[in-house]
Structures are given as C-alpha cells and as structure tokens.
C-alpha cells in the first residue's frame, strides 16, 4: 500500500514537473524567492558579524557567543511566533503590513538563518592561523584588508555556514506557516504545501512536493560540495 503511494507520488511529481503545472511552479518560485532572499540577508548580517566575533576580543564576548549558539538551535516555530507578534496589527511593526506576505516570511527565515551563518563563520575565522593574521599586518594590510584576507582563508567554513543556513530555512515549516499563512499564489511554499496536501489526503501531490523539495536541497548542497572539493584539491 505504502509503496503504491510512494510510486504514485513519484509519477505525480514527474507529471507535475513535465507538464510545468503553474500551481507547482508558483510554489517552487515562492519557496526559492523567500528562502533565497532570506539567505542573502542572513549572509549579509551573519558573515560580517561572525568575522567580527572571530577576530576581536571584547568584554561580554562570551555572552554574545552563547546567545549566538542558542540562536543556532532556536526552534523555528518560536521565531515564527515572535515575528507574528511583531508584525500583527497590534505589534510594534504592525504598520508595515508584512503579516501573511512573503516579506514577513523572509524576515522570519532571516532570523532563523543568520545565527547559523554567523556561528559557523565565527568558528571558521577563529580557525585561521593567527600567524597569518600577524603576517598580513606586517605586510602592511589595513584592518579591513586583513579581515577580508582572513575571510578568504576561512572560505570553506563560510561556505558551510551558508549551506547550514540554507538547509535550515528551505525545509522549515513552522515559522512560514505562522507568518505566511499558506495563502495560495502568495505565501504558499513547498513545506506548507506538503502539510496542506497531506491533510487533504492528497498523498501523491504531497510526496511530489517532498521530492521537489529534496531535489532542490540536493542540487544546492551538491553544487556547494563541488565548490568545496575544488577548493580542497587546489591546483596540484
């Protein structure tokens, strides 16, 4: 019985993709748009923050680091709840009108993703040889030039931080469900569509969405892995 459902799901997925079903394509587009934008924002905040934490010492750094690590394991649904309250009409950001829009979902996913990006970047930067940083300064690098060179040295770790950040949001359902509301053609993404179709008993379509989601995650991770391997091999 279950293998039938699975086979049905695979066939349905292929048929939906081959027929370029507009409902499916819309959902894929919203998913990529929301998670992609959230990832870019998370990287823009997380990479500099991680580099700063990795390279500097200041009073209270241990507390900030502990908070960051806590953020890395924060349940997405709680972040969804927090963003929902912020964006609700009586909340401090209610006037933005972002609740049940992709903007609200992007905000929630950025908050989920950036501690992962910042945390892994910080660890990677801290792993760079301290002698190299001293050497760069000795060669006349300014602080900004030395930081940039250090980030380049930590690029594998930074890449991992981006993979982790993406993985956390593309597969996340709680926050986008709460903040986005799963509105067809507007805020429905792959994960919320899976929940909906499963509840309706459309297991085939739900599995089809699951396969599409896995395929997207696989392609992104495979590409990143190829980049990583290329880096590790180097020339010769």
């Amino acid at each position, binding site marked *: 019985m279950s293998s039938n459902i699975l086979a049905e799901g695979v066939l349905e997925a292929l048929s939906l993709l081959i027929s370029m079903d507009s409902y499916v394509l819309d959902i894929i587009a919203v998913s990529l748009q929301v998670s992609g934008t959230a990832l870019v924002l998370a990287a823009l905040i997380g990479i500099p923050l991680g580099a700063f934490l990795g390279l500097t010492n200041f009073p209270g750094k241990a507390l900030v680091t502990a908070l960051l690590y806590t953020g890395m394991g924060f349940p997405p649904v709680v972040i969804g709840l927090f963003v929902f309250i912020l964006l609700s009409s009586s909340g401090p950001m209610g006037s933005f009108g972002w609740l049940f829009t992709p903007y609200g979902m992007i905000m929630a996913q950025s908050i989920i993703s950036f501690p992962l990006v910042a945390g892994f970047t910080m660890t990677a930067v801290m792993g760079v040889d301290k*002698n190299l940083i001293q050497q760069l300064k*000795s060669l006349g690098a300014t602080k900004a*030039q030395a930081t940039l060179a250090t980030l380049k*040295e930590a690029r594998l770790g930074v890449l991992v931080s981006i993979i982790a950040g993406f993985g956390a949001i593309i597969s996340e359902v709680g926050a986008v469900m709460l903040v986005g509301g799963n509105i067809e053609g507007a805020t429905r993404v792959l994960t919320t569509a899976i929940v909906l179709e499963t509840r309706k008993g459309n297991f085939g379509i739900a599995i089809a969405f699951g396969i599409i989601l896995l395929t997207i995650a696989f392609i992104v991770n495979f590409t990143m892995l190829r980049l990583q391997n290329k880096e590790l091999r*180097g020339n010769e």
Partner: protein
Amino acid sequence: MNEEFTYKMENISKTYARKTVLQVENLNIKKGEIFCLVGPSGAGKSTLLRLMNFIETTDTGHIRFLGKTYGPSQVPPLNLKREVTTVFQRSALMTTSVWNNVIYPLKIRGKKIDENEMKRIEKILDDLGLLKLKSRRADKLSGGEAQRVALARAIVFRPTVLLLDEPTANLDPANIHIIETIISKYVQEVDSSIVMITHNIFQARRMADRIALLHKGKVIEINSKNEFFENPHEDVTKDFLSGRIIF
C-alpha cells in the same frame, strides 16, 4: 629622511603580565647594514622585532623610525608603516597560488601590475627558484619552498627595512644558501636595513655587518662582526659564543 640610521631606539621596554621581557637602553640600526640579533631563547629578540615592525608598541621610551619619533602606544602612519615588514620563522602563506601570495603586498598598496612589473616579479621568483611554481598552491609547497615564497613576498614591494625572525630555521643547506644570497643582494640593491634574528652563529658570521647579543631582555653587547667574534668585550658574550649560555 636623509639620516644615517633607519632606527634609533632609546629606553624602550615591553612588559607582559607584569614581566618585563625587553629593556633596551640604546639601539641604532644603520642604513644599508645587515644587523644580526643573537641570544638564547626568551631573550626578547622576537619582541624587539615586533616593536620595530610596529605590530606592538613600546611601554616606555621611544623609537625614531625613518626620521620620525614614536613613543608608547604610538605607531607611524600607514605609508611609513608599510616601509617595514617581517619574514617570520613560520612562512604563514595564504591558501592560494604562489603568485597571488607574492603580489599580495602590491595589491593592498593599490599597485597596478603591468608588463614591466610582471617581469620584475618573475625575476624575483626566478632568483629564488620559484618561477616554475608560481601557479602552484602555496599550501602544497615544501618548507623550504614556502619560506622562499615568504621572502619573495616581503621583498617584492622593496621595503626600506626587512626584519627576519629566524628565516632559515629548520631549512636544509641548499635553501639556506638561496635565502642568504638573496638577502645579501637585496640589501645592496635597495639600500635597505636588514635586522635578522638567528640562532645560528655561523650564519651571523656569514651575513652580519654588526651583531647584538640579547640576554634576559637586555642588550649585552653590540659590535662589528669581527670584533664580536674575535674580541668580545663582555663575559656574557664570551659565555654565549662558547656555548655556556643556552637558555
């Protein structure tokens, strides 16, 4: 700028965790000389080099560098700071090609690398036996090759002062010979000052114009090479040269 000395240091000291590791009353480095710093481990030699490179600042006294004087916590402006660099014992290269490592100091100074400049850099690489390796990733090199890249990277922007912190420690004689040859050539070509820490007194004898012995953070004796080896003035120097002071 037209002074005889690149450095004039007076009463400088450095203290870490309440322990004074360096206390130098007077030390001058002349233009165009190779000045060797010798002494047992923990004598304060590397600390002195970090102060001379302005990676750290003195706690007391002042350093006159290229005509300007800097007191505690003071560092030269970037353009003057960029007239000095250090080659450390560990080469600390970036995980990119040899070429990218060598041109890094030029890139951060905003220098354009035209055809003539490229030829000049390739000549440096050739002199150091690195031309064939220029596309190779620096983290795949042997210790001797890596140290030669570090030297190429340091001299490529023709600094007025080159500081060398045991640049040939743990290298084989062939690599030591290449590095020593290039250092001797550089000081003549660029009219720079070279300050080199070495644990190898034979190397000091081969390379130095003048030598200083540091012991327990203090300068014990500064002398011309011949005087230092043939007629040391201080008992500590005599003990050091005879191997009676190791630590």
